[in-house]
């Protein structure tokens, strides 16, 4: 068991989450291996966002276990989870609109203190998203939707994460921008950051992911390598808009 666990960055076991009396997740279990891109796909209200919020500590499971690099982090506070090496890009980007692009990125590096290495990370973010450099002193709220998504991802990278959680990065963006952002996600992943990607755009998500899970009203019903899911008839019918 232990030998097997070594390859896992994130391990979710029997996760149950409630909002008041309503159960949003019904004992789901899944894992992310080191260096993988794993995607959770599913319709609106399936529990995808809840899953990410639970991993990053904003939501408490009862019961359920979240393990990160073998350590139980189920009851660690959100701001401490960032220190562990997990960073969550929330749904709807949630950048700080009254802070400048630079200040947003600085907030992403909040847990770090070495100014020089923070500056290096900022340069790396500009390598991925050159447009952010042009907008450095603009307020976050004045950016376009695509730029805001870039800022949200760039801000997350500033914490030097081992695992990146992404909630609907394609939401509200033009297809060409979605492609650009997904390409950058692959680059980020190639640099050694594991990715857990939540998406409604199943086709895009599965096309860059190694493995996928299909979440339906709080249950994981289908799972497997992304290539297999792309050809799975049920997935095709329900999520890929194919016949």
């Amino acid at each position, binding site marked *: 068991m232990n030998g097997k666990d070594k390859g896992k960055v994130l391990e979710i076991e029997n996760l149950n989450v409630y909002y008041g009396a309503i159960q949003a997740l019904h004992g789901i279990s899944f894992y992310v291996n080191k260096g993988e891109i794993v995607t959770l796909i599913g319709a609106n209200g399936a529990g995808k966002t809840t899953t990410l919020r639970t991993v990053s*500590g904003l939501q408490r499971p009862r019961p359920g276990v979240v393990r990160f690099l073998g350590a139980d982090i189920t009851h660690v506070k959100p701001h401490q989870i960032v220190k562990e090496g997990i960073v969550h890009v929330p749904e709807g980007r949630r950048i700080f609109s009254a*802070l400048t692009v630079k200040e947003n990125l600085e907030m992403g590096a909040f847990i770090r203190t070495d100014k020089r290495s923070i500056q290096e990370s900022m340069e790396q973010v500009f390598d991925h998203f050159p447009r952010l450099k042009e907008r450095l002193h603009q307020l976050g709220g004045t950016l376009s939707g695509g730029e805001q998504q870039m800022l949200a991802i760039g801000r997350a990278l500033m914490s030097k994460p081992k695992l990146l959680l992404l909630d609907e990065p394609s939401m509200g963006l033009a297809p060409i921008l979605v492609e650009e952002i997904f390409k950058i996600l692959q680059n980020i992943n190639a640099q050694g950051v594991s990715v857990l990607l939540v998406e409604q755009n199943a086709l895009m998500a599965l096309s860059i992911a190694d493995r996928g899970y299909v979440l339906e009203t709080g249950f994981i019903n289908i799972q497997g390598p992304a290539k297999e899911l792309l050809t799975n008839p049920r997935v095709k019918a329900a999520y890929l808009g194919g016949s």
Partner: protein
Amino acid sequence: MWQKLKSKITGMTIVMWTIGIVTLALVVYGSAVTLISGKYTLKQWIDFLIFGLAQGGIYALIALGYTQVYGVLKMINFAHSEVFMSGPMIGYFVATDLYHFNYIDTHPYLSILIVLIVAMFVSMSVAVILERIAYRPLRNAPRLVPLITAIGASFFLQYFFKGLFGSNIKVYPDWKVFLGKWVVFGQPILKIQIIVFFAAVLLMAGLFSFMQRTKTGKAIRAVSEDKDAAALMGIDVDSTISFSFALGGMMAGAGGVFYALMYKQVFFLMGFVPGIKAFTAAVLGGIGNVPGAMLGGLFLGLFEAIGPNLFLDGLGIPSPYQLKDVIAFSVLVLVLIFRPTGILGERLAKRA
């Protein structure tokens, strides 16, 4: 075109605009009559102006606390009046001790610095403890609950201080260096008022650059905007909220000492009126907005110092200065009617 315009005008807008126009007309008429009558000399107007600036500086310092707390918690901390009172109250005992040892006369600047630091520390501690005990457990309660708690905490603190130190008015010792007048451009001006104004401006500039430049300041702004997103960046939201209470408390404590130096007295209910006025100032500038609170405070101070004589005297109202509170609160009502967001404000209704 005309039809379209007509359909937009409802009974309410007519009432509002009538109120606005009548107020404006009275203000203009009153001011004109006052100025033409020449009842006040230029020197007197300058006195009013300087007094207004000093008073406004104090309001601004208190208003910062309301705005900081509103920023991070979206609640009005009605116990902030008592945060303001507690600093100079404890500072009084330090000041009288220093006075008895003759230290105020021999080392006036060092001793005012000591009193200031003590008062700022006390107000800061009261604000932080208040948040920890009274507000944090209610973080997820309906909005009305912390509001009522704040009013309760306000009474608690008032009578706690009354119980500890009695209800008598305590007279602050004199700092001889601050007495008397300076002559600026041929105008004699009270030293203390000028000092208070510049000290307040200095503190506000310090706070402003803290909020803009330091990591903690930026974190406070991030938490004000989105607590969850801030937590996801690794910002400890609870300690950031504590920190903004601490900053607001420090500013109020300093404002309290300036108040005590200008009016030479402190007592357990001293916070009430300046507190409410500063709240007005915060709303006037746009609550949640730091430069807004500064601007609102100065504006209200000036308005209150010049307004009664300028607007009301000309209308034939006897002893207009007694009505300065009426002016202050009329300003609050008018702002709420015509520009609920305040001068620089974020939208009050946005998250309400």
